[in-house]
C-alpha cells in the first residue's frame, strides 16, 4: 500500500514538473471546448432534446469531456511499448513489482494532477461563458467514484494495446486503431446518445463508454438509484475484466521474452 502511494506520487510529480506544458495543454483544451460547444449549440437550434440531453446538458458535456481527455488519457500512451521495444522491460520484469501494478499506481497518481490542472481550468472558463449544469452533492461523489473507475479502465486498455509490442515490431498500427476506436466509442467526440441505433448498440457492448460517457452521465444525474449502482458496477466489471486481460497479456509477453530473448 505504501509502495502504491509512492508510485502514485511519482506519477503526479512527473507531470507537475512541467507547469508550462500543462498550461499550454489546458489552453488547447479550452479552445477545443469552445469549438465543440458552438457546434453542438448549433445542432440544438434544430431540436431541444436528443437522446435525453438538452442544450445545457450537452454544453456541460463538452466541457467535462475536455476535462476528462487528459484525466483518462485517451489520446495515446506508449510508454510501456517503448520500454518493450528498447529492452528496458527486462529490468522492469526482473524487479519484484509487476509492471501492471506499477503503471496502475503511477496512473492513479497522474490522473488527479491532470484533472485538477488541465481539466478544471478549461471547465471554469466554460462555466463563465456558458450556462453549465452542476451536480447534486450525491452525484458529485458518484462522479468522483466513476472517474476513478474510468481511469482504471482506461489504463488497463492502454496497457493492452501497448502489450502488442511484445509480439509486433510495428505496434504503432495496432495502437493507432485502438486509440481511434476507443476515442470514438468513449463518447469523447459526440455523446453516444447521438449515434444511430446500430452504432449505439455497438457502443454499449464495448468498454470505452465507461471511460468518458459514463462519468459524464453520472455527473449530469442521468442515473439515479438502482440505475446509478448498475452503471458504476458495469464500470467496475470492465475494470476487473480488462485488468485481468492485461495481466494475462503481460504474463504471455513475459514468457515470450524469456523464451526468445529481447
Amino acid at each position, binding site marked *: 500500500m505504501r509502495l502504491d502511494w509512492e508510485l502514485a506520487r511519482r506519477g503526479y510529480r512527473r507531470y507537475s514538473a512541467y507547469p508550462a*506544458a500543462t498550461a*499550454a495543454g489546458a489552453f488547447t483544451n479550452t*479552445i477545443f471546448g469552445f469549438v465543440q460547444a*458552438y457546434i453542438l449549440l448549433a445542432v440544438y437550434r*434544430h431540436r431541444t432534446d436528443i437522446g435525453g440531453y438538452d442544450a445545457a446538458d450537452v454544453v456541460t458535456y463538452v466541457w467535462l469531456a475536455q476535462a476528462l481527455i487528459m484525466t483518462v488519457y485517451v489520446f495515446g500512451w506508449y510508454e510501456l511499448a517503448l520500454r518493450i521495444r528498447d529492452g528496458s522491460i527486462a529490468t522492469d520484469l526482473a524487479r519484484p513489482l509487476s509492471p501492471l501494478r506499477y503503471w496502475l499506481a503511477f496512473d492513479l497518481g497522474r490522473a488527479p494532477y491532470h484533472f485538477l490542472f488541465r481539466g478544471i481550468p478549461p471547465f471554469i472558463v466554460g462555466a463563465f461563458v456558458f450556462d453549465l449544469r452542476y451536480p447534486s452533492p450525491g452525484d458529485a461523489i458518484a462522479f468522483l467514484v466513476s472517474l476513478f473507475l474510468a481511469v482504471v479502465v482506461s489504463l488497463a486498455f492502454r496497457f493492452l494495446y501497448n502489450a502488442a509490442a511484445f509480439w509486433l515490431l510495428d505496434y504503432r498500427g495496432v495502437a*493507432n486503431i485502438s486509440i481511434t476506436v476507443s476515442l470514438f466509442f468513449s463518447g469523447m467526440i459526440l455523446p453516444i446518445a447521438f449515434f444511430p441505433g446500430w452504432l449505439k448498440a455497438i457502443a454499449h457492448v464495448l468498454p470505452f463508454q465507461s471511460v468518458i460517457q459514463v462519468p459524464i452521465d453520472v455527473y449530469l444525474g442521468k442515473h439515479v438509484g438502482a440505475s446509478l449502482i448498475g452503471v458504476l458496477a458495469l464500470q467496475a466489471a470492465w475494470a476487473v475484466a480488462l485488468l485481468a486481460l492485461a495481466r494475462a497479456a503481460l504474463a504471455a509477453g513475459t514468457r515470450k521474452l524469456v523464451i526468445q530473448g529481447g
Partner: protein
Amino acid sequence: MVDALAVYTRLIGAQVRSQLQYRVSFALDLTGTFLLSFIDFLAVLVIFHNIPRLGGWSVHEVAFLYATSSISFALCDLAIGHLDLFPQRIRDGTFDVLLLRPRGTLYQVLASELTLRRVGRVVQGLIVLGYALSGLSIEWSAGRAAVLVLMIPTGCVIYGSVWVAGACLAFWTTEGGEFTNAFTYGGNFLTQYPINIYSAWARRFLAYVIPMAFVCYFPALYILDKPDPLGLPSIVRFVSPLVAGIAALVAGAVWRLAVRHYRSTGS
C-alpha cells in the same frame, strides 16, 4: 529560387526514400491513416443523423467544407507537420547546426522532413469531396472551378503560416508546444463546420487575426452560391490567395524575429 527548390527536393527525397525502405510497414501505416481519418467524418454524419441542417448548411455542404479543409490541412501536415517536434530540436541543440549552413533556417527546418504516410488523410478528403459534390447541384463556371482548385494550396499556406508562427514559440519556451496545437489542429477542426455557427468575436478573430475563415468558408460561399448570413461584402470570397500571401509573410517575419531573439539570448 529554382535552386532552392532543387535542394528541397533532394533533402525531402532522401527522407522519402528512407521512409519507403520498409514497404510493408509503410503500406500498413498508410492504410491505417486513411481508414482512421474517416472517423472524423463519421462525427459529421452522426450529427446529421439527428438534424436536417446545421446553421443553414446541409450535410453535403458541410461535407464540402470538411473535405476542402481536410485536404488542405492534410497536405500541410504532410509537409510540415513535423514542426510539432521542433521544440525538441531547440532542446537538444540540433538547431544550431542549421545556423552553420549557408541557407535560411526556416527553409532548412521545413525541408528536414516529410511524413509521407499522412497522404492517407488526403485521399480520405478527396473521397469525402466526391461524396459532397455528388449531393450538391453547383452551377459550375470557370471562376468556380478556379476557386475550387485554388482553395487547396491557399488553405495549405494559411495552415502552414499558422504552424510556422506557432513553432516560433519554441524559441522562447520549449514546453509550450501544445499551445500551437490549439491553432493548428483546432483550426482544422473548426473549419470543418460553417463559421457562422461560432460567436461574433470568434468569427471576427477567424477573419482578421488568424484567417481560418479564408481556408474554405468564404470560397465555399462563392462555389455553393450561398448568401453570407453575416452580410460581409462579396469580395471576401475571392481574396483568400491574398490573405494566404500576407499570412505567409507574417509567419516569415515572426520566424526571423524569433531566430534573432534566439541568437541574442542563446540556448
